[in-house]
């Protein structure tokens, strides 16, 4: 099983949109996918129409006897199951501190034979939970908006990961780009020049993405030919090339 995490220090960059759509694309191309919503906001859970509830809350989930399987729900996206968020995830840092820094990785190991891809949708910031995600993940998918401070954010992440013994692969990609804007084009070009692992596919800032909140489904389910859908399709293909 490959463990991928949509992650960024910054919020509002398209992590959840990417997690849900890439999970759908992975399933469409033959993977059995577990989408794990680690953000107490529960947006990914909302997008797949599942109730944001964990029996016993986050403490039970990551406790010594906790198991992922009892919390997993099937979604309406063929091939995608979800581990829903719960507002108690706002205390996840505390619970992970009390158990083990490798707890997320251990929980995922238990389902490694059942899924081909685990897609973790992370809350923003660098926290104890983030570190647990870095430990568990094979790759971090880092949506990066083409703004002047984005390179700085990537550098911060890079510096932090360099302190780890076995950091995950970092695959940044340009998110929410409006190619009509000169600054977006220039910043995107600078990112491509400065980051060799920057994925070539750029996710556009399009209105169809807003409709995800209404349709409560990945883009491919209601707009199969939309630019955003095709972007996530191509993005997944690039990610798969790196991993398989």
């Amino acid at each position, binding site marked *: 099983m490959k463990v991928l995490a949509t992650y960024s220090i910054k919020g509002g960059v398209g992590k959840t949109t990417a997690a849900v759509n890439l999970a759908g694309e992975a399933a469409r191309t033959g993977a059995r996918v577990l989408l794990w919503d680690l953000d107490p906001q529960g947006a990914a859970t909302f997008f797949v129409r599942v109730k944001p509830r964990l029996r016993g809350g986050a403490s039970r989930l990551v406790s010594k006897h906790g198991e992922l399987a009892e919390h997993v*729900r*099937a979604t309406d996206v063929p091939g995608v199951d979800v581990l829903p968020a719960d507002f108690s995830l706002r205390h996840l840092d505390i619970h992970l501190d009390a158990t083990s820094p490798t707890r997320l990785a251990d929980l995922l190991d238990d389902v490694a034979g059942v899924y081909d891809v685990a897609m973790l949708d992370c809350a923003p910031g660098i926290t104890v939970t983030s570190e647990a995600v870095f430990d568990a993940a094979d790759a971090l998918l880092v949506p990066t908006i083409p703004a002047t401070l984005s390179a700085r954010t990537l550098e911060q992440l890079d510096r932090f990961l360099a302190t780890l013994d076995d950091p995950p692969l970092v695959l940044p990609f340009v998110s929410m780009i409006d190619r009509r804007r000169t600054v977006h084009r220039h910043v995107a070009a600078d990112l491509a020049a400065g980051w060799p692992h920057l994925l070539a596919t750029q996710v556009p800032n399009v209105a169809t993405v807003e409709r995800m909140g209404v349709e409560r489904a990945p883009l491919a389910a209601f707009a199969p030919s939309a630019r955003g859908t095709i972007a996530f399709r191509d993005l997944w293909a690039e990610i798969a090339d790196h991993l398989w």
Partner: protein
Amino acid sequence: MSSVVTSRGVDATPDALLRDLQGYTIAPPRRVTSVVLDTFDGRLHRAGLRLDHVDGSLVLRDAEGGVARLAAAVAPRFATDLPRGPFRSRLAGVLDVRALLPLATVATTSRRVERRNADGKVTSVVTIHDDVCVGGSPIAGWYATVEELTGYVKPGDRARDVVARHTTDEAPGDVVEVALAAAGVERGGQHIEPGIPLDARGPAIEGFRLVLANLDDAIEVNREGTIENIDSEFLHDLRVAVRRSRSTLRHGRAVLPADVLAWIEPGLKRVGAVTSPPRDLDVQLLEWDASVAILDDASRRALEPLHQQLSRDRDAAYAELAAHLRAGDVTNLLRRWHDTIHAPMDPAAGGRRAGDPLVDVVVKRVRKAQRRLLDHGRAITPETPAELVHDVRKDAKQLRYLLECFADLFPGAARKAFVKRLKRLQDLLGAHQDAEVHAAELRHAAEELPPTTEPATYLAVGQLVEHLERVRQDARDGFAERFAEYDSAATRQALRDMLDGAGT
């Protein structure tokens, strides 16, 4: 993971069930055709998997209820025909080099019935199937499948209760699984193991006959697939069955009728000879990527003309083999052998040991084969010519085949322990042989290249041959130590444990 159960309708039609499924959304019926795919030897089924080509997708189901889907307009022949990714990796891990073949076609008229909660989320699914056919033959009745979605236990249970009021014979699996069982479709594929049940104290001639008849079945079962060139395993399995047969005949010279041996031994030797060229080329092509991995990108590209030449040679060799296997001589030989070995043999017509207890004859053959192997192995020095090292390899194979074909006579654990020691020696001897043969074939193939071939190609061939020579020499250098490991007290004890328990 979601679970699926299917049951057969007891009412004349599913109308009453549909009425009972209140609050569910009923989709219009549509005709669904699933082609179930597997290898000739049923690898997917044996691994607990089922692969269907349905509605322009490949659907891979496992025993735990997991389902993976991949869009595919046509069914692939090999796992490598699929795009890179986890689906292909999973299939390749099971299929290896075997081709996917259509096993059965199941067609149904299906209606999907869903229940959704207040969030519009599907919480249970019932599918009603009518006009179920397997391979065009109808299966009586209609069926209902309840899909219990992970995390939605109560809605699933409620659906199951409603369905149970109108159906019977609930079984795990979807309608395809139930239909295949109802139609009696054999799922395990065809794969004949060399070991069969044997009467240790019965006459040796009958034991040898049964072993050879089983090996003949293996030859028969793989013949058509070899002729049709479906995948490389057919020829591999056919050749292994021929080699085991030849070895068993040799071990049975004092047991089997001399007049039968007189025509079948040279006959199978000819069959072995005509199957060698295409198999050698198969192996080269199957191992191509691993072989050229030691070269840089430019050298790998320069070898492409050779790769293509080998592919053309392989196709030509297979065509020639097919002609042999269809031709009078070989066909007549194999038919005559089939009729001979599947009929009872009178011990009075056999060799001098035909009536002896089977286990006594085989134990004696094992001791003799082991002595021969040790004698030849002990004579090997660093200066010994390569042919004599190959003789040791052949001795080891003779012993191994004997233990495989007559496995039933020996206690399982003791036999495995001895074979493990023998295999270590065989692995080294095999590496030596393979490197030598591969290098010779590369040299030969390079000689066949057209005069317009770029020098870079010849240079790359040279690099490969040099590498293979190093591999061969390493194996040769390691022979003394590996043989000493085999020619040891531990091996002698393992042999004693195996033979002392023989026939018990």
